[in-house]
C-alpha cells in the first residue's frame, strides 16, 4: 500500500522527465499518451492505496513512510516523508483521477499546437507537485509541493508565451501566490521554533501549547497561504487572469485541484486553526465575502472562461466557509463534487471554444443548443450541479455546508448562512445566464460563420470521453453522502479531522429547501432575461465591471509606491552614488594615466638627462647627509 502511494507520487514525475529527455524522439501525440499514462498509473496506485486503507480499522489508517532524511540543520531534521491517511487518499484520488481525465482531454484539445511536448511535460509536473502537496508527510514537504504547484501554474498560464497578456497573467499569479508562500513559510518558522519539528503528528499534538500569540500568528500565516492559493479575498485577483492559459489547464489547475489546495491546507492543519478560533472564523468570513463578491462579478463577465473562473472563486468560498466553521468533511465533500462539475464545465466550455475557433466572448455566442447537443447536455449537467439543483452533486455538498453554518448558530453563523444563501441565488443566476447566452436563441451571425464541427477519430474521442465521464460523476457524485442518513465521507475523514459542527435534520432540510428555492429563483431570473428575453438585460454596474476596483487599488497601493520608491532610489542613490563613484574612480585613473603618458616623450636624451640629474641629486644627498 505504501509502495503504491510512492508509485502514485512519482509516476507523473517520471512521465514529465521522460517527455523532457526524449524531446524530438517522442511524437507529439506520444507525449500526450505518455503523460496520460503516467497520471493514469498514479490514479491506479491511488486506488490500490485506497483499497489497502479500507482494510485497516478506522483508527489505524495513518501510515507515514520515510524514504530518507532530506535536510538536517542543527538539532532539526526533516525527512522525505509521505503520509497516507484518509484525507490524503481522498485528495490523491481526486487529483490523479480528474487529472488523468483532463490530461487525456488535452490530447485532443492541444492537438496541432506548436509545443505539445512542453505542455504535457508541464502538466505531468503539475500533477506530481499536487500529489507531493497532498501526500507530504510533514509541513516542509507540503510547502515544497505548495511552491511547485505555484511554479507549474505559472508555467502553464504562460504556456502561450507569445501572448503578452498570458505572460502578464502568469507573473501576476506567481507574485500573488508568492505572498501566500511567504506568510506560510513564516508560520512554519514559528512552528519550528515552538515545536522543533514539522512532522504533522508532533506539531498537532503540541498545538494547544503555543500560547495565544503564536497560535494566532501561525494560523494567520497558514491562512495567508491558503487564501493566496485558493484565490480568496483579498488575494483573489490572479485567478480570472489565469484564464489566459489553455482551457484544460484552467480545468485542472484553476478549478479542480490547485486552487482547492487552500481548503486542503486548512483541513490538514485543522488542529493549528482550532488553537486559534478567531482566525478560523476569519477564514469562514473571507470565504463568505468571496462567495458574494465573486458571484456578483460573475454576473457581468462576458468571457465564458472568466465566468467559470469567478464561479470557482465563489465555490471555494463555500469550502472556506465550511472549513472555517470546522465542518471539514463538508468542505472536502464539496471540494470533490466541485472538482467534478467545475472540470466538466471548463471542458465543455473548451469544446465550445474549440468549435468556435478560439472565441470566448459570450456575446458572440448563442443558439448552440441544436448545433452541439451533447456539449449542451454536459454543460447543462455542470450548471445544474453548480447551481445546487437536486439530484446533481452540488446540491448535496453545498447544502450540507449551509446547514453547518445554520448549526453553528450565533449571529456570525446566521450571517454566514445568509451570505451563502444569497450566493446560491447568484450562482443560479450567473450559471444559467452563461448557459442561456451560449446555447439559447437563434444561432448568432458569428456562430453561423465560424462554427466547425469537431473532427471525429482520436481528437473527437479524447475530447468526448473525459467530458462524458465527468458528466456522469457530476450528476451522481453527490450520492456519496446524503446528510443525516448516509455519511461515508464524514466517517472516512473523521479520524483525521473530526467535524466541529453537526447539523440536525431540521437544519439540513431548511437549508436545502431555501437554497433550492433561491437557486431556482436565480435560474428563473436568468431565463426571464437571457433565455426568454422578456426583459432587456440591465446595464452592468461599473463597480462590477471593474471587479470592485481591486486591481486598481492594489496598483495604487503597492505597485505605484514601489515604482516611485525604486525610481527615487535610482535617481537619488544609484545614479549619483553607485554609478557616480564608479565613474569618478575610472575617470581619475584615466586622468592619472594621461598625465603619466606626458612624461614618456620617447626622447632618449631627455631620459638620459633625467637619469643624470637624478644621480646628481642622489650624490649630493649622500654627500650632504653623510
Amino acid at each position, binding site marked *: 500500500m505504501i509502495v503504491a502511494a510512492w508509485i502514485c507520487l512519482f509516476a507523473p514525475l517520471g512521465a514529465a522527465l521522460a517527455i523532457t529527455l526524449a524531446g524530438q524522439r517522442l511524437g507529439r501525440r506520444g507525449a500526450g499518451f505518455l503523460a496520460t499514462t503516467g497520471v493514469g498509473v498514479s490514479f491506479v496506485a491511488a486506488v490500490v492505496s485506497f483499497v489497502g486503507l479500507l482494510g485497516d480499522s478506522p483508527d489505524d489508517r495513518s501510515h507515514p513512510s520515510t524514504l530518507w532524511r532530506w535536510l538536517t540543520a542543527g538539532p532539526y531534521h526533516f525527512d522525505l516523508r509521505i503520509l497516507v491517511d484518509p484525507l490524503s487518499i481522498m485528495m490523491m484520488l481526486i487529483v490523479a483521477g480528474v487529472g488523468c481525465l483532463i490530461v487525456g482531454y488535452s490530447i485532443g484539445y492541444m492537438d496541432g499546437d506548436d509545443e505539445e511536448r512542453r505542455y504535457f511535460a508541464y502538466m505531468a509536473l503539475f500533477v506530481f507537485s499536487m500529489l507531493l502537496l497532498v501526500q507530504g508527510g510533514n509541513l516542509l514537504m507540503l510547502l515544497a509541493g505548495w511552491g511547485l504547484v505555484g511554479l507549474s501554474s505559472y508555467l502553464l498560464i504562460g504556456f502561450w508565451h507569445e501572448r503578452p497578456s498570458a505572460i502578464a497573467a502568469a507573473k501576476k499569479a506567481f507574485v500573488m501566490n508568492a505572498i501566500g508562500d511567504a506568510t506560510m513559510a513564516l508560520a512554519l518558522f514559528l512552528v519550528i521554533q515552538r515545536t522543533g519539528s514539522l512532522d504533522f503528528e508532533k506539531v498537532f499534538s503540541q498545538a494547544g501549547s503555543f500560547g495565544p500569540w503564536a497560535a494566532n500568528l501561525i494560523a494567520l500565516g497558514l491562512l495567508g497561504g491558503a487564501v493566496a492559493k485558493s484565490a480568496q479575498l483579498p488575494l483573489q485577483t490572479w485567478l480570472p487572469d489565469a484564464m489566459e492559459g489553455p482551457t484544460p489547464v484552467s480545468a485542472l489547475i484553476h478549478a479542480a485541484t490547485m486552487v482547492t489546495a487552500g481548503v486542503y491546507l486548512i483541513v490538514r492543519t485543522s488542529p493549528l486553526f482550532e488553537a486559534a478560533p478567531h482566525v478560523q472564523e476569519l477564514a469562514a468570513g473571507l470565504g463568505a465575502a468571496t462567495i458574494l463578491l465573486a458571484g456578483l462579478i460573475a454576473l457581468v463577465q462576458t468571457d465564458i472562461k472568466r465566468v467559470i473562473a469567478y464561479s470557482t472563486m465563489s465555490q471555494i468560498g463555500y469550502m472556506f466557509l465550511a472549513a472555517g466553521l470546522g465542518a471539514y468533511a463538508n468542505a472536502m465533500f464539496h471540494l470533490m463534487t466541485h472538482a467534478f462539475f467545475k472540470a466538466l464545465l471548463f471542458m465543455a466550455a473548451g469544446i465550445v471554444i474549440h468549435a468556435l475557433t478560439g472565441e470566448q466572448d459570450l456575446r458572440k455566442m448563442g443558439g448552440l443548443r441544436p448545433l452541439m447537443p451533447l456539449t449542451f447536455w454536459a454543460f447543462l449537467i455542470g450548471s445544474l450541479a453548480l447551481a445546487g439543483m437536486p439530484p446533481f452533486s452540488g446540491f448535496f455538498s453545498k447544502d450540507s455546508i449551509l446547514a453547518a453554518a445554520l448549526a453553528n448558530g450565533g449571529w456570525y453563523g446566521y450571517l454566514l448562512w445568509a451570505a451563502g444563501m444569497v450566493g446560491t441565488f447568484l450562482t443560479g443566476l450567473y450559471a444559467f445566464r452563461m448557459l442561456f447566452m451560449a446555447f439559447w436563441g437563434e444561432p448568432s451571425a458569428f456562430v453561423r460563420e465560424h462554427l466547425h464541427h469537431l473532427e471525429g477519430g482520436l481528437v473527437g474521442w479524447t475530447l468526448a470521453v473525459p467530458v462524458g465521464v465527468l458528466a456522469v460523476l457530476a450528476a451522481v457524485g453527490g450520492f456519496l453522502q446524503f446528510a443525516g442518513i448516509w455519511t461515508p465521507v464524514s466517517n472516512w475523514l473523521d479520524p483525521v479531522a473530526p467535524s466541529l459542527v453537526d447539523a440536525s435534520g431540521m437544519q439540513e432540510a431548511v437549508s436545502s429547501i431555501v437554497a433550492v428555492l433561491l437557486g431556482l429563483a436565480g435560474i428563473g431570473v436568468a431565463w426571464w432575461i437571457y433565455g426568454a428575453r422578456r426583459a432587456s438585460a440591465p446595464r452592468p454596474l461599473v463597480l462590477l465591471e471593474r471587479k470592485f476596483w481591486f486591481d486598481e487599488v492594489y496598483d495604487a497601493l503597492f505597485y505605484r509606491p514601489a515604482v516611485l520608491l525604486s525610481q527615487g532610489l535610482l535617481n537619488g542613490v544609484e545614479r549619483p552614488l553607485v554609478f557616480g563613484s564608479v565613474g569618478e574612480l575610472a575617470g581619475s585613473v584615466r586622468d592619472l594615466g594621461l598625465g603619466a603618458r606626458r612624461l614618456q*616623450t*620617447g*626622447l*632618449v*636624451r631627455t631620459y*638620459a*638627462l633625467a637619469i*643624470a640629474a637624478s644621480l646628481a641629486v642622489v650624490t649630493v644627498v649622500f654627500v650632504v647627509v653623510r
Partner: protein
Amino acid sequence: MNGPTVVWYLCVAAFLFFTGALGVLIRRSPLIVLLSLELMLNGSNLALIAFARFHGRGDGQIFALTVMAVAASEVVVGLGLIVAMARRNLDLDVDKLRTLRG
C-alpha cells in the same frame, strides 16, 4: 710606489665619464651617442682599476673585465640597430626616433 697617485687617475676617469655623459646628452647621432656611452664606461672602468690598484686587490679588475664584456655586447646590439636604421633610410637622429613604430 712610483707614478701619479690614485687622485690623478680618478680625475682622468671623471673627465672621461663627464665627456661621455655630455656627449650622450647633447649629441643627436646615435653613433656618437654609442661612442659617448663607451667613453663613460671606460671612465668608470678606469676608476675601478685605479681603486683596485690602490687597495691592492683584484676584484675591481674583474669588475672592469665584466663591464668590457657588457660594453662589447651592447655595442653589437647598438651598431646592429644603427645599421638596420640606415638600411631603412631612417634619419639617424635620436630626437626623431621617438615612437616605437619603425
